[in-house]
């Protein structure tokens, strides 16, 4: 089981309570599709993805990015049991969406960078480390039900 200090819980809760989901969610997914173009394979039906501009202005991608970001709420509410909390979502990503779990790390790296760009120096090394620890646990949980 993952151990969280009070400080770490505080950092995660504070980060998510002030998060602008619309802004961060849309930016994160579009950034992932631009920086790691092979991830576009999962979004063939989402409309134009032929350039960075097309991706950044694609409303379907923006909306989906927000949806994905809200997917993390489950982890924030269940920090002591993230693995179990994501069983269903893991099965979904494995069996229905058929996403290579290595891509979860790419998306979480992009999320880290988008938040760093927004928060500037307030995204301290300690905040970064805690956030990355949190994301790593979620990524691991999402990959657990693959078979």
């Amino acid at each position, binding site marked *: 089981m993952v151990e969280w200090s009070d400080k770490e819980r505080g950092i995660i809760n504070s980060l998510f309570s002030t998060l602008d989901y619309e802004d961060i969610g849309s930016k994160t997914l*579009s*950034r992932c599709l*631009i*920086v790691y173009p092979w991830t576009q394979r999962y979004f063939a039906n989402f409309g134009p993805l032929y350039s*960075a501009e097309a*991706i*950044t202005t694609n409303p379907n991608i923006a909306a989906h990015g927000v949806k994905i970001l809200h997917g993390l709420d489950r982890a924030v509410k269940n920090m002591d049991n993230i693995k179990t909390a994501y069983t269903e979502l893991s099965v979904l990503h494995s069996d229905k969406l058929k996403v290579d779990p290595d891509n979860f*790390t790419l998306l979480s*790296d992009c999320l*880290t*960078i*988008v938040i*760093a*760009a*927004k*928060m*500037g*120096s307030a*995204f301290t*090394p*300690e905040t*970064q*480390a805690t956030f*990355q620890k949190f994301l790593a646990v979620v990524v691991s949980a999402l990959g657990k039900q693959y078979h």
Partner: protein
Amino acid sequence: MLSKKERALIKEIWEKLTPEAERIGSEALLRMFVSYPGSKTYFSHLDISPGSAHLLSHGKKIVLAIAEGAQDISQLMVTLAPLQTLHAYQLRIDPSNFKVDKSVCFLELFSHCMLVTLAAYMGDEFTPIAHAAMDKYLSAFAAVLAEKYR
């Protein structure tokens, strides 16, 4: 592969950042030490506490090397030859190895922390395109450094 446009963008960004080499380099190092404590083992001979003289000078050294490489990316193998030897034979820092669990690829982890540092420093200016180009450049840089490992 870095396009002509991307090479020009990388060159421009690092030219602008060179005056801040100390600040950016030391921050990237510090971020790596906090997120990946195992990386500290390679610096046991230095005082790498936040704000220390060693951290600042070492961070500066690293950024200046990255900035120098950015001047002519096509010549990375030549520019980095001395550093290749240093990292592979003397320092023996765990190189990036895309098939291994991230916790053991320190060159790659440093690259990630450098990207986070740049994002925090440049804000909106660290656009998705700049991010993609920078990620590719730092990967190429790390790959050249790792060339002499075996």
